[in-house]
C-alpha cells in the first residue's frame, strides 16, 4: 500500500519534471515536425511553470476577493463529486438491474443489448439539454426535479453501460460445472444468483465499476457545461478558460480539481475492490501459498 502511494507520488514528480524539461528545451512559439504543427508552445501563457500553477491555488480567486483559489476549486469539486457519486450510484443500480434481467431472460439480452450499445453512441452534449428540459417538466406532488439531477442522470447514463456489460459477463462467468452443481441441489434461480452468479461476477464487476466511476465524473462535468449548471467544476473550467489569456495558471487549478475528483472516485472503487477481493486468489500468490501448504501437509 505504502509502496503504491510512493509510486504514485513518484510518477507525479516525473510528469512534472518532463513538463519542466519541455519548457526548457521546447520552442517558445510552438514548432513543426515535418511541416505539421505538432509541438506545443512552451511559453508561460500556454504551459505555465509547475510551481506557478501550484502557488496559484494559494492566491485569491479574483483580484480583491478574500477567498483563496483553492477554496473555490475545492468547493466546486465537492459539488461535482456529490453529483458524480449520485450518478455513479444510479448508474450502478441500473446497470446491475439490467444485467440481472438479461442474465435471467436470454430473450431480453438479445433484444436489449444492441440498444444499450447504441445508447452509448449518442453524444452526451446532444443529450444533456434534452434531459435538462425533460427534467424541468418532472414534478411529483411537492417534489420538483432539481437542476443538478439532470447532471447526475447524465453521469448515470455513462456509468450504467460498463456496469451492465461487466456484470452480465460476470454473471455468466460461473463455470458450467458449478451451475450444474447448484442444479443438482435443486437450488432456485435466486439462490443460484446469490450464492454463485453474483460472487462469481465480482472480478468482472471491479474493473467495470472503476470505469463507471470515472465515466460518471466525465458525464457530470460535460453535463454541467452543456446545461450551464453553476457550482461545479465543469462550470469552473469554462469560466477559467475564458480568463486564461490574462491568468493562464488559473485554468490549470480547475483542471487539477477535475483530475483529483476522478482520482477520488477511482479511490472509492479501489476501497470496494480491496474489501471484495481480499478473499480471492491472487495469481502471483497462488503458487507460493500452495507450496507452503503442501509442505505443511507433508510435515
Amino acid at each position: 500500500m505504502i509502496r503504491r502511494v510512493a509510486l504514485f507520488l513518484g510518477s507525479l514528480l516525473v510528469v512534472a519534471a518532463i513538463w519542466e524539461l519541455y519548457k526548457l528545451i521546447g520552442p517558445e512559439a510552438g514548432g513543426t515536425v515535418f511541416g505539421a504543427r505538432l509541438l506545443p508552445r512552451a511559453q508561460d501563457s500556454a504551459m505555465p511553470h509547475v510551481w506557478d500553477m501550484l502557488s496559484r491555488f494559494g492566491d485569491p480567486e479574483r483580484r480583491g476577493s478574500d477567498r483563496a483559489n483553492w477554496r473555490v476549486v475545492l468547493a466546486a469539486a465537492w459539488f461535482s463529486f456529490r453529483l458524480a457519486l449520485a450518478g455513479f450510484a444510479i448508474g450502478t443500480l441500473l446497470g446491475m438491474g439490467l444485467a440481472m434481467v438479461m442474465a435471467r431472460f436470454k430473450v431480453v439480452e438479445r433484444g436489449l443489448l444492441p440498444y444499450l450499445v447504441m445508447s452509448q453512441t449518442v453524444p452526451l452534449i446532444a443529450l444533456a439539454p434534452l434531459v435538462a428540459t425533460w427534467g424541468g417538466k418532472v414534478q411529483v406532488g411537492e417534489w420538483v426535479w432539481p437542476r443538478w439531477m439532470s447532471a447526475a442522470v447524465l453521469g448515470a447514463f455513462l456509468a450504467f453501460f460498463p456496469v451492465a456489460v461487466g456484470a452480465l459477463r460476470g454473471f455468466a462467468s460461473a463455470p458450467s460445472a458449478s451451475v450444474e452443481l447448484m442444479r443438482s441441489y435443486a437450488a432456485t434461480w435466486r439462490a443460484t444468483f446469490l450464492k454463485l452468479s453474483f460472487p462469481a461476477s465480482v472480478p468482472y464487476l471491479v474493473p467495470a465499476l472503476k470505469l463507471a466511476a470515472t465515466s460518471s465524473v466525465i458525464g457530470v462535468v460535460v453535463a454541467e457545461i452543456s446545461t450551464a449548471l453553476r457550482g461545479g467544476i465543469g462550470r469552473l473550467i469554462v469560466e477559467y478558460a475564458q480568463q486564461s489569456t490574462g491568468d493562464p495558471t488559473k485554468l490549470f487549478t480547475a483542471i487539477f480539481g477535475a483530475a483529483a475528483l476522478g482520482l477520488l472516485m477511482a479511490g472509492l472503487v479501489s476501497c470496494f475492490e480491496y474489501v471484495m477481493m481480499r478473499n480471492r486468489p491472487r495469481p502471483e500468490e497462488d503458487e507460493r501459498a500452495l507450496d507452503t501448504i503442501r509442505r505443511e501437509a507433508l510435515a
Partner: protein
Amino acid sequence: MSEHRAVVVDGVSKVFNRGTPRQVEALVDIDLTVGGGEFVSLIGPSGCGKSTLLRLVANLIEPSTGEVLVAGKDAPRARLDQEYGMAFQQAGLFDWRSVARNVELPLELKGWDGSRRRRRALEMLQLVKLTDFADHKPWQLSGGMQQRVAIARALAAHPRLLLMDEPFGALDEMTREHMQAELLRICAETETSVVFVTHSIPEAVYLSDRVVVMSPRPGRITEIIDVDLGPSRTVETREDASYFKKITEVREALRAGEDDRETEAVVAEERSSR
C-alpha cells in the same frame, strides 16, 4: 447388499438435437440397477454416453424414452429431495468461500441453521482428513485436497447415493490411488452407494462391485462384469493376480465393444454398396 435399490434405469434412451442434422443418439436401451451400498463404475471410450447416463440419473437432463428411479422415486423428485450428492472432474469449489463453507453449501440450500451446518461440515472434513484446513480458502489447497473437499461437500447432506464423474481424472497417479482408498473407506463407513464414471480400467476394477462396460455410437451397455475383490481392498490388492485377471476381463470387454462396432460398420457398408 440390502434389498433397497439406489438406482433403477429402465429402457432409457437419449437423443440430442432430435430432428436436426446434428441429431446424436447418445444412449440406446439402457437397463441398469444399482443396489443399496453398491459401487458401480461406468467405463467406456469417450463418446459412449457414460457421463450422459450419470446426468440422467442426476436429473440434470431428461431421458428421451424410458424411466429413471433414484431411491425409489422419479429422478426429478429425487433431485428436489436431494437424494444424491455429486462430484465432478473439476472440484468446482467456490473461491470466495472457506473450505468449511464450501462443504456447508448444500446444507445452506436445505435451510439448515449456522451452527448445525458448521458441525456437520467439520464432521465431513474429519472424514476426508482435512479438519486443519477448514478455514483455508480452496485455492490454497492442492488438487487432491480440493477433490477431497468436493467429496466432503457431496456427502455433507448424508445422501444414500454418490454420483461421480471422473472425480480423480485430473490427479497424478499417487494421489489418485490414495484418493481411491479414501473413497472406499468413506463409502464403507457411510454405507453410500456410488455410480462412478471413469475411463481408467484399473480404477474401475479396484473400486467397484460391478463394472459396466459401454460402447459408443450409439451408447449402450455391452457387458456388466462382477468384480468381487472382497470388502477390504489394500495396497496388496493392486498386486494380486485376481485383480489383474479382472483388469484383463474388462479390457477384453471394451475391445469386444469396439469390434462389434467395426463389424456393424462393415456390414452397413456392404449393405449400402449393394
